[in-house]
């Protein structure tokens, strides 16, 4: 608990405002990106990349994970990320479905 409050002081309100500005800036980039004629896959990658960065910022600063013990991160996130990745095993079937559609 003590360690925790020490760190809480280390983060000032200013940090949060900067994080907020960064998040907004990335959102603006995302919206602009949507209006460029880029290939679908590239666009998806860019958007998701930015979203992951935004998510990471929210988790690290707003949700305070950066200032918790690292063991908490290790307990929670590998299993979540692992499961999310597993869900992508569905995708080969999606492509097959596409191939099998009557044209």
């Amino acid at each position, binding site marked *: *608990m003590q*360690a*925790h*409050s020490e760190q*809480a002081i280390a*983060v000032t*309100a200013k940090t*949060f*405002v900067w994080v*907020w500005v960064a*998040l*907004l800036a990335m*959102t603006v980039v*995302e*919206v602009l*990106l*949507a*209006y460029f*004629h880029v290939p679908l896959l590239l*666009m*998806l990658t860019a*958007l*998701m990349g*930015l*979203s992951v960065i*935004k*998510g990471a910022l*929210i*988790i690290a*600063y*707003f*949700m*305070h994970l950066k200032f*918790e*013990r690292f*063991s*908490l991160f290790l*307990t*929670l996130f590998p*299993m*979540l990320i692992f*499961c*999310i990745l597993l*869900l*992508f095993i*569905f*995708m080969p*079937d*999606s*492509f097959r*479905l*596409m191939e099998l*559609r009557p*044209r």
Partner: protein
Amino acid sequence: MAEARSETLVPASAWGGGASPFAMNSKKLGMWLFIISDALTFSALLVAYTYLRLATPNWPTPFHFSPSILFASLMTFVLLSSSLTMVMGVHAMNHGHRRRAVGWILATMAGGAAFVILHATEWRHLIVDEGVTPFSNPWNEPLFGATFFALTGLHMTHVIVGVLYLGVIAIGVGRGKFKPEDVEVSGLYWHFVDLVWMFIFPLVYLMSVHI
């Protein structure tokens, strides 16, 4: 066998008990666990959406800049800002400024409410003006509306629940009942709702922009 027994002589100090290994109270850990689970529910829905969309040759991309994208961007702005006010509320509470914390939490709730109102307007526009429903739409790809309403609907439910939850917290803090950690836990939930939107916004809206 000898080793096995020598292990039994390890003194009890190996684990002190009574303290969280993560140096956080159980409530906060509980909320984190809930968030992990809920995040997986949303991920599964997003993956289902991706799966169905990839398998559909002509997925419609109907969102015009005005009003859809404009509204959605505004909603993102509102939600991100409400996260900022929330974090300020937690900050104030941690430093013992109860009144200020209540103010920040109320601001957060206002942000949440604004999000819901904007979103409802946007839904109304889609349903009434564009004719998009969960089961049909002008582009004859019923799954477009289905995925749209399922994802944004579940997210909006989370926002509404969050506003109510924050309301309870604000009242409790105002009356001097809740501790800083209670505010922090509610903050975790609120930021999570924000976080989910960071993925729904690009995947649902920006990937379907009408150019």
